[in-house]
């Protein structure tokens, strides 16, 4: 009976998470500026890094895919809760029979889907416009999906401080995301980076996603694939757990 009750409760909460996902996609992700930002941003970064430099395009593509994933999957997540606090719709969500876990799971799933779908753009650009060859499609898919899951969860974690002004969270989000970009082997492979960066790399989930994507494109990687897979799952679980604790603790603040 208890098992059945628990299963029913999980089933219901999963449906609630899907309802939140649907709401987020409609409200935040399917906006033309968000879509355009998601597509154009990695392309311009690619051009900025490639043009005028003696680097083979094939060497840039894995970094471009990882970077696009990083920026798209974690772009909107940090802002959903502050936007909802600001619009006073958050109070309605937490007064409904939905657990904080389900609300956050819905937020994570929307970031995961958005990041995964938009990462197809740099993958296609790489495949169609350069001589890049994908040597392991399953590894590329795993890297993209686990990376997107991880970055979306990080986005939700960044949304937890009790700020009703989205600009405050945007600042925090950029303070965390931008430095990590430079110690994760996106632009320069980790083995070629200075010692301090190699020490910092293991604390960045982006490093592990980059390893999987680089390996999928046939490049050498700093960490073993198994470790990267494990660390991405580990980081996602830790981020989600900490997010649930913080969101629950601060849910009534800044209402």
């Amino acid at each position, binding site marked *: 009976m208890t098992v059945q009750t628990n299963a029913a409760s999980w089933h219901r909460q999963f449906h609630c998470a899907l309802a939140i996902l649907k709401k987020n996609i409609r409200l935040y992700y399917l906006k033309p500026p968000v879509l355009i930002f998601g597509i154009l941003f990695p392309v311009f970064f690619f051009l900025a890094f490639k043009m005028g430099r003696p680097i083979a395009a094939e060497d840039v593509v894995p970094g471009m895919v990882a970077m696009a994933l990083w920026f798209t999957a974690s772009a909107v997540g940090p802002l959903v809760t502050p936007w909802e606090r600001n619009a006073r719709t958050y109070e*309605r969500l937490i*007064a409904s029979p939905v657990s904080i876990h389900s609300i956050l799971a819905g937020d994570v799933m929307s970031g995961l889907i958005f990041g995964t779908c938009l990462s197809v753009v740099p993958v296609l650009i790489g495949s169609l416009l350069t001589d890049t060859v994908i040597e392991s499609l399953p590894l590329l898919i795993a890297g993209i999906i686990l990376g997107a899951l991880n970055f979306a969860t990080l986005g939700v974690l960044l949304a937890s401080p009790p700020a009703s002004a989205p600009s405050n969270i945007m600042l925090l989000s950029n303070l965390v995301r931008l430095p990590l970009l430079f110690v994760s082997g996106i632009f320069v492979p980790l083995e070629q980076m200075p010692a301090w960066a190699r020490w910092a790399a293991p604390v960045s989930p982006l490093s592990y996603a980059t390893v999987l994507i680089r390996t999928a494109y046939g490049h050498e990687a700093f960490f073993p694939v198994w470790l990267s897979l494990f660390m991405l799952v580990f980081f996602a679980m830790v981020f989600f757990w900490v997010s649930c604790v913080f969101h629950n603790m601060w*849910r009534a603040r800044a209402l």
Partner: protein
Amino acid sequence: MKPAIEVHQLTRTFGRIKAVDRVAFDVYPGEVFGFLGPNGAGKTTTVRMLTGVIDPSDGTAVIQGHDIRRAPLRSRAHIAVVPEEANVYLDLTVWQNIMLMAELHGIPRRQRTGKADQLLDALGIADRKKQKARMLSKGLRQRLMLCAALVTDPEIIFLDEPTSGLDVESARLMRQIVADLNKDGLTVFLTTHNMTEAGDMCARVAIINSGRIAAIDTPENLRAAISSRQYVEVAFSMDLPDQDQLETITGVFEMKPALRRFTLYTDTPGQVAAEVVRWADQKGHQIAGISIHKPSLEDVYLHFTRTRRAGGSQ
């Protein structure tokens, strides 16, 4: 009868400030319960605790048999909330707003679509179904909020200032819908500043002041409890009598003049009215009108909130 809401010593502190201090009351099934109090008295904090938005610092409440601290999701499954500010999702359509709330409450698809159509018709916004909530006026957004709350088939509805700032038609419609639903057994927890609304709609009211319940009873009993605020209103048509003489009439302990009208406060209004007529006849004053009034709910409210404030400042 088992209460729909049982509140036990509910307390909430914010730092050193006790916003709600050991509040306790019951709300019975099918009752319209009014929750009144001045700004900052603890109304919103109490409602937020009951609806799961914030945790109590101490005490608890039981909603339809489920403790809000031990089983928050189960307790919230029985309630719906219509906040004062119509916080609908502006970029979702009317229909999407309603469906979202229904989905979050686990209402099956067929049931939620049928019920939503029915409610949209009843609330007069069926023709706005595909419009974004952004396009609606405040009154229509409030109707949408009510619709989104009722589609979840709640047993208890929390209404926070439901008619505040609405046009006459929308306010009347809201009151009518709530009254009809209450006839069908819905328990209503109404937070309001509108004393007429509370007096007309509520079976019982609680007055909260400085975080504590100052009074709780039926509006009639509360009015009776402050019988000293009964009054006789008398208007004179020609020569005005001497105010000091009016005040000497037996049983009058306060008098307020206003143009040709005098308000005499007493706890024996019948005797005072008879005495005023006799006295006017003797003195040759012509009475244009005389009436006896019981204290209004507003008088009751002011009595309890002012008494407490005066007590607190001493």
